[in-house]
């Protein structure tokens, strides 16, 4: 309960901080809209030549794009800026101040910075998802909706744990920013269904960087093509990664000896 209240406070402070820069809202909305139009235009070009891409119909691909933007926005609102700040704090020594606060350090670090304007991606993505689902209404029932909700929760947990583990590496190594760049480079591959990629790339997008579980699996859920085994796998992976990233964080923290020590 205390944790939730803390998160609420962080979100409110972040929101207040960002509202000082209102022009950024328009810039961000413009960039998000442009980005989304580009993704949709690429799909339009592809489907002007075919009506089926590796078994995915156009409306299912727009569903995928919706999920892609929701996850992208979610990462950029809290996880990416907060962990970026954490990486800087280790270098500058400001992490010491965080550690002296009477709350769980991982929680503090994970919500330290909020970029509310990046919610534009989440809203636009939700819009595209809603339209796609309406067009595909006859295939999406209560079961699919529930599966989708579960898959999205798993996606969030997996992506968060992945970022947390990479950021924790900063206790031992410098220049982790570059490693995070690998995530962004590979994430763009998630705009297309993972299934069309050759085997080696599919493995990389599933195991090295969890793009498959972050984007493709939830999109499959609303297209009614997600097997129970797959969902169970996503659930197990989410729990496993959450536990592991927690354990890894505690190891890192034990290793950390402060800025000037």
């Amino acid at each position, binding site marked *: 309960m205390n944790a939730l209240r803390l998160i609420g406070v962080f979100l409110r402070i972040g929101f207040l901080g960002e509202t000082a820069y209102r*022009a950024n809202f328009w*810039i961000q909305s*413009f*960039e998000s809209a*442009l*980005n989304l*139009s*580009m993704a949709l*235009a*690429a799909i339009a*070009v*592809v489907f*002007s*030549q*075919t009506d*089926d*891409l*590796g078994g995915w119909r156009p409306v299912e691909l727009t569903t995928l794009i919706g999920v892609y933007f929701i996850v992208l926005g979610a990462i950029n609102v809290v996880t990416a800026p907060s962990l970026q700040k954490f990486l800087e704090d280790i270098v500058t020594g400001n992490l010491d101040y965080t550690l002296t606060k009477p709350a769980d350090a991982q929680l503090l670090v994970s919500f330290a910075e909020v970029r509310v304007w990046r919610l534009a991606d989440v809203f636009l993505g939700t819009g595209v998802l809603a339209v796609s689902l309406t067009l595909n209404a006859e295939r999406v029932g209560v079961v699919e909706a529930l599966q989708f909700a579960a898959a999205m929760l798993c996606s969030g947990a997996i992506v968060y744990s992945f970022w947390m583990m990479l950021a924790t590496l900063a206790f031992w190594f410098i*220049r982790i920013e*570059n*490693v995070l*760049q*690998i995530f*962004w*480079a*590979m994430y*763009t*591959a998630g*705009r*297309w269904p993972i299934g*069309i*990629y*050759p085997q*080696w*790339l599919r493995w990389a997008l599933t195991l090295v960087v969890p793009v498959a579980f972050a984007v493709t699996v939830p999109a499959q859920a609303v297209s009614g093509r997600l097997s129970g085994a797959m969902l169970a796998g996503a659930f197990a992976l989410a729990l496993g990664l959450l536990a592991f990233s927690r354990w890894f964080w505690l190891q890192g923290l034990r290793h950390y000896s402060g800025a000037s020590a």
Partner: protein
Amino acid sequence: MNRWAALYRAFLRTALLEQIQYRASGAIWMIGSVLEPVVFLVVWSTVAKAQGGSVGGYGAHEFAAYYVVLLIVNHLTFSWTMHDFQFRIQFGSLSFDLLRPVHPIHGDIAANLAYKVVMLVVMLPALVILTIAFEPHFTPVAWSLAAFAPALFLAFLLRFLFEWTLALAAFWTTRVTAINQIYFSLLMFLAGRVAPIALLPLWLRNVAHDLPFYYMVGFPVELALGKVPPTDALVGFTTQLLWLTVVGAIIVIVWRRAAYRFAAVGS
């Protein structure tokens, strides 16, 4: 002449050392530029297979050839000035550049060349792996292949100068990311990166033929593959030179006004 040779030798030496120093981050940036053509290659070969072997004159292995060459051309022509010019102004490092007795663009050209030389270490294995994985099918035409070299050089000049001009926007606004985003979108669709422009709808293809973007990437790629008829190649070269003149003129005019406008903090 001698002065320029000495100048570039000095610039290149420092730029090379700098790039070798940051080789790991340079290599990581390459992941994105290798992955992008791979993604579109996979998408289009999937489409080609679903459509009974080929779309728009490209089969799966022709798409492989197109995107392998595109990877090379895109890598050789790209630049990053427009992404970091705002920081030079914001943090004042531009003041040092302005103190030197040469135009700052020369330092950028040298840095660009140095990055590309160092990144051969990543590029060559990537090309080998892609060739093995996707089996590109080349049917080179001798004259077309010979024309590829000058086309590539002009494409580099055009793109570099265009992006450098775009970077100057940072003198007037702090919102350059939006401008860069617009440019990037145009480049993706009209330069032939999302798809060979033969696959675009007719109206968009016509637009692409008139604007400079196709001549920065797509035109040399298609020349290398022997997909451009001789008359179109001539039109292509003419258009490249025409845009190069336009961009060159703009850069001279705008740079003078921009440098005049620049006031370092504390001056």
